[in-house]
C-alpha cells in the first residue's frame, strides 16, 4: 500500500511500486485531466506538482511520491474560481486541441510560484513542454498576463523590467 496526499486528501493505492504516477492518477484514481503523451518524460503532457514542483508523472514511479503532496490539474481552479493561469488562458484564447494544456498550465503555475515575473528566457527554460498545435506564442502571452495580474511579492520588483516584448 502506497500513501500520498492527492489534491489535499490522503490517498492509498495498492499497485506495483514502479507503476508511473500518471497511470495511478488516470486509471486507479480516475483523474483523467493529466494526459499521456510520450511515456518518456519528453513532452510534459503529464505534468503534475509533487511537493509544489512541476514534475512529469509518466516516468515517475508512484513509490517516489510516498507521503508527498501531489496536485493535479483538477485542483488548479474551477470555472467559478479560476487560477490566474486559467483566466489568462481563456483571455488569450490559448488552447487549440487542448490536449497538452493541463501539463502546460501546471508547468506555468509552478513557474509563477517560483518567479512571479518570469522573463521570456525563464519561460523558455522552465516550460519545455510540447504543443503540436503550436500555441506557444499565446501561452507565452498568457503567462506574462497572469504574472502581471498576480500581486508581486516585495522582493520581486526588479525582474519585471526584463519581460520586454513577448515572443
Amino acid at each position: 500500500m502506497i500513501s500520498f496526499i492527492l489534491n489535499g486528501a490522503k490517498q492509498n493505492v495498492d499497485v506495483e511500486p514502479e507503476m508511473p504516477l500518471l497511470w495511478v492518477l488516470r486509471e486507479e484514481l480516475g483523474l483523467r485531466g493529466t494526459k499521456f503523451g510520450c511515456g518518456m518524460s519528453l513532452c510534459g503532457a503529464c505534468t503534475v506538482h509533487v511537493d509544489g514542483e512541476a514534475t512529469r508523472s509518466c516516468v515517475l514511479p508512484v513509490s517516489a511520491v510516498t507521503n508527498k503532496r501531489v496536485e493535479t490539474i483538477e485542483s488548479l481552479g474551477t470555472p467559478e474560481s479560476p487560477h490566474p493561469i486559467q483566466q489568462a488562458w481563456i483571455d488569450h484564447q490559448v488552447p487549440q486541441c487542448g490536449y497538452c494544456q493541463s501539463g502546460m498550465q501546471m508547468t506555468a503555475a509552478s513557474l509563477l510560484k517560483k518567479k512571479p515575473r518570469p522573463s521570456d528566457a525563464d519561460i523558455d527554460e522552465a516550460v519545455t513542454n510540447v504543443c503540436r498545435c503550436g500555441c506557444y506564442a499565446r501561452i507565452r502571452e498568457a503567462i506574462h498576463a497572469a504574472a502581471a495580474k498576480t500581486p508581486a511579492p516585495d522582493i520581486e520588483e526588479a525582474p519585471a523590467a526584463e519581460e520586454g516584448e513577448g515572443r
Partner: protein
Amino acid sequence: MKIKRRTLMIAGGVLGGGLVVGAAGVGGYVSTFSRRDIQRGGWSDGEGRLLAAWIVLHADGRVRVLSPHTEMGQGAQTGLLQIVLEELDADPSKTTVELAPTTPQFANSDNFAGLVMGDSDLTGWSKDFMEKTFGRGAQFMGLQITGGSTSIRFTGWKGMRRAAAAARQMLAEAGAEKLGVPVADVTTADGEVIHASSGKRVGYGELAEAAAARSLPESPAFKDAASWKYIGKPFPRVDIPDKVFAKAVYGIDVEVPEMRYAAVAPPPVALATVTGVENEAELTPRRGVEAVIVMRDAVAVVANNPWRAEQAARAAKVTYEPPEGGAVDSAQLLEKQRATIEAGELESVHSVGDAAGALASGEVIEAEYLAPFLAHAPMEPLNATVWTDGAQVHVASGVQAPLNARAAVAKFMDRDLEDVVFHTHTMGGGFGRRGGTSDANNNWLRQAVDIHEAVGGAVKLTWSREADVQLCSFRPADVARMRAVLGPDGKPTAWHAQTYAKIGSVHEATPRYTIPNVAIDTAAAEPALPFAYWRSVDASTHGFFIESFIDELARAAQQDPIDYRLSLLPEGRHARVIRRVAEMSGWGKPGPEGTAKGVAMFECFGSIVAQVAEVSHEDDIPRVHRVWCVADCGVAINPNAVEAQMQGGIVYGLSAALYGAITAKEGRIEQSNFHDYRVIRFSDGPRIDVDILTSLDAPVGGAGEPGTPPIAPAVGNAMAALGGRPRALPFA
C-alpha cells in the same frame, strides 16, 4: 459521373412546434439529408422528433446549431456558430453549437454522390478522396469529414449561412403575419421580429411552428458585410473553457464499465506480417494480464491497467515474416525515385505552351529537392474504446470523419452499419492522421475491433507514442527535379517540374506565377509506406519545391526575391499579400547581425499566405528568430481563430522543416518518440506576427492548412541568403 450541381434547402417541423432548417449538398463536405429521410420520419434526439438538420429552433427560443465537423483545435464549430448568429439574427445567449450525431441523416449519400462529384470547388485531392469513398458502395458512405480546411468554407459559408438566412426570412414572414403588419416593415434582431414603428415585437420561439409551415425561400438575402456583428469579428471559442478546466473528454479519457486495456507491440519491420509471439508464457502470468493476441500487424496484450498492458507488450518477442514486396529502405527509395525521374518514366499532368522547346533554347537552371516521409504525431496518441450493448457495437474515438470511421468499423466487423454506434470525441490533434481515408489509415480502429472480438467485453486500445509513430500512415516522401530557362529580362520562359509521388491536386503543383511555358510531370507513384494526408496535403511538398525554385531563379536573375515574385504576378490578391508581408517584415532593411530574411508565398485551400522568416546560423543549425505572416482567406469568419491557425500552421511546418523526417532502414522505422522525431518547443520557436487581409468578393478560404506550406521555403530561402541553399528537408 457528372450530375448537375444543385442546391436543396429543406425546412420542416419538430415535434413540439420547432423549426428546423438544413441543406442538402450545397458544397463540399456538408451535412445533408434528403426529402426521403424526412418522409421516413427523421431522427429522434429524445426531445421529440428532430429532422436531421443544421439549425434547430425550439419553441422556447433556443437555437441549436448542429455541426457535422469534429473539433481538433481549429475552432470551426465557433466559426459555424458565428455564421448562424449573423444570418439568423439569433439571440447569442440562447444559441449553442454541438456536434451532430454520427448518423447518416447528417451526411446523406444519395444526394452527395451527385452533388459533390459535380462540385467544381473541390480540388483534385478531395475529388480523389470522394471517388475512393464512394467506391466503397452506398452502405459505407460517410461524409462527416473534418479536413481539407472545409468546415467553414463549404459547410459554413455555402451551407449554414444560406440555411440561417432562409430561416430568418421565414421567421420574419411568420412574425409579420402574427403582428398583422407587412413583412417589408419588420426587422429582426437578437431572436426577435420587430415592427419598429409600433414597437411591437415577437420572439423567434413563438414563431417557430408557423415559420416551419412556410415554404423555404429560394434565394434568401444575406446580410451586407458592412452590417456584420459576428462575421469577421474576434469571437471566443466555445470549446476553450472545457479545455482549460480539464473537462474536455478525449478518446483516451473514455470510461466504460468493466473496461480492460490493450497495448500493442508492432513488428520491428514496417509492413511485416506478424506470425506469433515467442514468449507468450512469460507474458500471461504478469499481474493484470488477461490475454495475448496475435494480429496481422501487431501483437496485443490485454490487461486491467494500460501500463501493465504496455509493459507486457514491450516484453513481447514478436515473430514476423518480412513484407512481400521487400522491406522499405529510405536510401534505396531515393535511388529509385531519382532513377525514375532520370529515365523520364513520367506522365504529364499539366502543360502550357512548349516547355520542352523553351528549355532546349537556353541555359537551363536545374535543382533537385527532397522531402521525406513525415508522421503527424498528434499530442494524443491514437486510441479507441470498443464495447457492446445488446446487438450493437459501440466505438469511441477521436476521428476527423465519424461516418467514415463508423463505416470502417462495420466493414472490419462484417456488421450492418446500423449495428455500429460511433461516439466521436474531441481530438488531441489530428493533422490528417485521423482522416479515415483508407483501411491503412484506420489501422488503430481495426486493431481495437480485432482485440474486442478476440476477448469480448469493453476494451480500450491506447497506442504508445512509439506505436503512434511507427504505425503511422505517413506523408509520402518525394523528389522534385525542377528546371527553368530565363529570358533576357530574367523572367522564366520555361518551368518544368518532374516529381515522383502521385499528385492529388495539380493546382498545388503548378506555380501561380505568369510563365509562358509550363510542364508538370510526375511518376504518380504510390507511396512505399502507408499513406495519410498530412496538414496541407500536396502543398506541404510542392510548396517547398515551387517556392524554393522561384527564389533560386530570382537569385540567378540577380533580382530581389520580393520584386521578382511581384514581376511575375498580375495585380491582385497574391501580389497584395506579398507587398504586405514585405512591409510588415521590413524587407530590404538590414535585420539583426548574422540574420537574413527569406520569403515564400503559397495558395492552397482557397487562401493565399505569404511568410517572411528571419534566420541565423547557430553552430551550423538554422535558428528561426521571427516569422511575419500575411493571410488572405477571403473573409476570416473569426480572425482570432485564423490567427491561431496561422501561428499553429507555422509551428507545425517549422517542426517539419527543421527536424521532421521518418526514415526506414531495411524496413525499420528509425524514429519512435519526440527525442528522435523532434518538434519545435518554446526555446526554438520563433516570434510570429500575423496580419489578416480581407477580400470580400473572394470565396471564403481555409485556415487550418494554408499556414503550413510557406514556412519551409521561407526558412530555406533565408538560409540561401545567408549562404548555402538547403534543398533537402529537414534543414537542421
